[in-house]
């Protein structure tokens, strides 16, 4: 019954990608002109893919919900992008980047994909520099690198605290060049609502024009989903307000398998929640952990006094501070991976040592300002300190920052094979939207790398292997039966949403659902909570479809309708996340099951029973999905327990 074939090329690991490229089918220039490719999403993955495919001569249609493709949420990434260039001569290599990524992912990612990612990482930097991305440079004019997220080598390239912005603008510029050349046609303010399948293959999409409300049909010989992660299911997250998982979710409902939905990343350094009106959480770059020390008071009475504002952080003597990461993980200290740092913060706060609202810990620069001087700290983190002060109204040069973990990234996503194709022929998924490279935990500065690797250097090859067999398929008219049927279903869904006219606004219901998801499928999970979550989300789905209130019309710009459709999908996604977390009876990476931990409270992985990708098959709303397993084999790396203590 298994549908899973990852189609990993034969041969030794270091030769697989070259072997693949040598043997794959290509499409000749005359035929490329006859082929249409739909790319949904214009972030790093989508824009780089659209640009590269356009340059090759394919007809590309690029869709985004924003008013301009330049606003995709990749733009908010701060810290940097990894590449195995080994410019600092500190021992980096393709193998080491691959090794760190597999280990960081807690041995739940696919080895061949990760190796390829490390292999093309250097090309990405070359490409971006050629595009005019103003990376940081040293005084000799060469590129600067920094160490990031606990890596032992300096392999992170950066452009101040705006690396994501600069990389995205590079990809956007390349895409706009193709818009000018006529190979890419842009559809901004347009949201994909469904995929059209013809004889089992992805052949198009149904969209809604967000300005006029018009429902439109688009044909493509292949469809590429590059719509990012589903983290805003939690309501509060570091994602953009419009970020959503609906394109991937519709793909799932049309038959694509959804892999490891419970693997979400909780980032340790975000500005804590400060009120129930709050709409999103702001990330403070992980690079701050290079010089900031994380602590809470050693005594509960001090924590309480700090929470009440009776004392200030500087009143707590050094010996009364618990630098808990340095205490628990002497080898890595404040630079442990994100999942470990996040759980440790939660542990201290749950035990009653939290500051601020009780759900916050300090990130303190006093020691590094003393050691390096304020000027150096300002040079390194000036924009972040300013951002913090704007939001919180406190000066982090004088009083420690307060931080708390928040939902940040989704490792899980559409299951794809080595070619980045889902289980639906002709439907591809790239960037955060797929599952393949980060396992159960993503390392810092690796998301940008993966998005651009997929879009610039992998998909433009692998999609041709599929399209080579499609050169005889003429463009299909969009008034065919399958297009009209799918459009009819979408119209029915939207009309149904509009007609409910219930009592609760979309935001209220989303906030309610998000809190439940955070509580039961968040940083710490257990079977009781997960079973409860599955039941509650199912009844919440009913409640949504009977009590939601959308004002305004269907044939006009209507953000309430847009949000409602996304939240309906989030609630269903939440149910699948809970099911996935429940079946995975182990703790690994960002997935922590309270029943499976060591006596010291560390994650306890179970490689004998759970070294597999969990890929779920949709069987109908409210019905139990079917679990498929893709076993993971590590041929070039010794599987071991992550240890950040020694």
């Amino acid at each position, binding site marked *: 019954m298994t549908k899973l074939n990852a189609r990993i090329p034969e041969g030794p690991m270091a030769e697989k990608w070259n072997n693949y490229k040598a043997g794959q089918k290509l499409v000749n220039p005359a035929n490329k002109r006859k082929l249409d490719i739909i790319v949904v999403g214009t972030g790093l993955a989508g824009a780089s893919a659209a640009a590269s495919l356009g340059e090759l001569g394919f007809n590309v249609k690029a869709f985004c919900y924003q008013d301009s493709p330049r606003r995709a*949420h990749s733009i908010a990434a701060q810290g940097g992008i990894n590449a195995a260039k080994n410019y600092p001569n500190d021992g980096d290599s393709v193998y080491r980047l691959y090794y760190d990524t597999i280990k960081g992912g807690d041995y739940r990612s696919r080895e061949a994909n990760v190796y390829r990612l490390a292999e093309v990482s250097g090309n990405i930097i070359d490409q971006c520099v050629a595009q005019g991305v103003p990376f940081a440079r040293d005084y000799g004019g060469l590129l600067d690198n920094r160490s990031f997220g606990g890596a032992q080598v300096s392999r992170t390239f950066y452009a101040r605290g705006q690396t994501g912005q600069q990389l995205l603008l590079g990809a956007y510029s390349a895409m706009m060049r193709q818009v000018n050349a006529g190979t890419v046609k842009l559809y901004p303010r347009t949201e994909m609502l469904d995929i059209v399948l013809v004889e089992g293959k992805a052949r198009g999409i149904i969209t809604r024009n967000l300005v006029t409300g018009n429902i439109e049909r688009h044909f493509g010989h292949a469809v590429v989903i590059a719509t990012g992660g589903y983290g805003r299911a939690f309501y509060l997250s570091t994602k*953009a307000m419009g970020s959503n998982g609906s394109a991937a979710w519709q793909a799932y409902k049309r038959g694509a398998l959804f892999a490891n939905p419970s693997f979400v990343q909780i980032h340790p350094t975000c500005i804590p929640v400060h*009120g129930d009106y*709050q709409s*999103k959480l702001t990330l403070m770059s992980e690079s701050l952990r290079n010089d900031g020390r994380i602590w809470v008071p050693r005594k509960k009475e001090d924590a309480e006094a700090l929470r009440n504002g009776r004392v200030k952080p500087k009143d707590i003597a050094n010996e009364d501070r618990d630098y808990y990461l340095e205490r628990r993980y002497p080898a890595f200290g404040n630079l442990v991976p994100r999942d470990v740092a996040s759980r440790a913060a939660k542990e201290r706060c749950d035990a009653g040592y939290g500051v601020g609202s009780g759900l916050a810990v300090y990130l303190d620069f006093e020691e590094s300002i003393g050691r390096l001087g304020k000027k150096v700290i300002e040079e390194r983190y000036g924009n972040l300190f300013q951002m913090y002060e704007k939001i919180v109204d406190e000066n982090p040069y004088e009083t420690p920052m307060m931080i708390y973990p928040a939902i940040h990234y989704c490792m899980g996503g559409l299951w794809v094979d080595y070619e980045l194709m889902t289980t639906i022929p002709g439907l591809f998924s790239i960037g955060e939207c797929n599952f393949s490279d980060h396992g159960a935990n993503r390392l810092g500065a690796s998301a940008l790398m993966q998005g651009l690797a997929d879009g610039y250097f992998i998909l433009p090859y692998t999609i041709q292997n599929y399209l080579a067999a499609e050169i005889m398929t003429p463009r299909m008219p969009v008034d065919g039966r399958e297009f009209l049927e799918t459009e009819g279903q979408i119209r029915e869904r939207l009309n149904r949403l509009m007609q409910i006219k219930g009592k609760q*606004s979309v935001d209220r219901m989303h906030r309610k659902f998000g809190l439940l998801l955070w509580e039961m499928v968040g940083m710490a999970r257990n079977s009781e909570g997960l079973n409860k979550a599955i039941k509650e989300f199912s009844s919440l789905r009913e409640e949504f479809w009977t009590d939601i209130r959308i*004002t305004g019309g269907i044939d006009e*710009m209507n953000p309430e309708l847009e949000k409602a459709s996304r939240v309906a999908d989030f609630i269903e996604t939440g149910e699948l996340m809970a099911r996935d977390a429940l079946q995975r009876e182990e703790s690994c990476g960002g997935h922590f099951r309270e029943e499976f931990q060591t006596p010291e409270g560390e994650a306890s992985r179970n490689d004998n029973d759970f070294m597999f990708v969990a890929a779920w098959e949709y069987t109908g709303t409210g019905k139990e999905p079917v679990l498929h397993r893709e076993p993971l084999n590590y041929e070039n790396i010794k599987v071991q327990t992550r240890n950040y203590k020694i």
Partner: protein
Amino acid sequence: MDFTLKIWRQQNAAAKGRFETHKVAGISPDCSFLEMLDILNQQLIDKFEKPVCFDHDCREGICGACSLYINGRPHGPDSAVTACQLHMRKFKDGDTIVVEPWRARPFPVIKDLVVDRSGFDKIMAAGGYISVNTGGVPDANTIPVPRAHAETAMDAAACIGCGACVAACKNASAMLFVAAKVSQFAMLPQGKVETRERVLKMVAKMDELGFGNCTNTGACEAECPKQISISHIARLNREYLSAKIL
């Protein structure tokens, strides 16, 4: 905190707009301006009314989507922020706040506070890039770039394309936006090759779309959330002039 809001409402591009007055009460000073609008919209939905449309996305000052003209200033009364980073503590309790969309002819209103800024994308498509294809580029460290040049390029590249410069300018000029891109590439050896064609094409497109010219009032720099300097406009002018002469 309590506020009276005078907000621009307009059903679509063709309709005539008007100000509507609404009151919001009990707003936390830590609330962002957009979160305050969320609270207003919740009130409107509770009354079965249409919420106010406004562009927003990242809510951390980097996507450039928000485009609110608040009390006569793009992004409101704070400096070096976008509207999503503006907090209500910057206002006084009881204030009346006027909220309008960007006011510039090349940015027509789509609905309420939402405007059409696709002109910026068109200018970018005309020449806002370095003409390299994917692959086949030299190693990233082949050409050293003086650090100071790279830093100046980065200063310019920080533009988020929000359009506050156009909205602030009495001529609705897009010079600061165009200058930021031209200047970024002119500072880098990779971009230098095409400077001439780039500056001519981008300026021609800007003119064609109806953006005005620069008369050096400096309003754009004053209101730019990323504090992009008008010295980049000087560099644009220099590049444009040499392109015309040579």
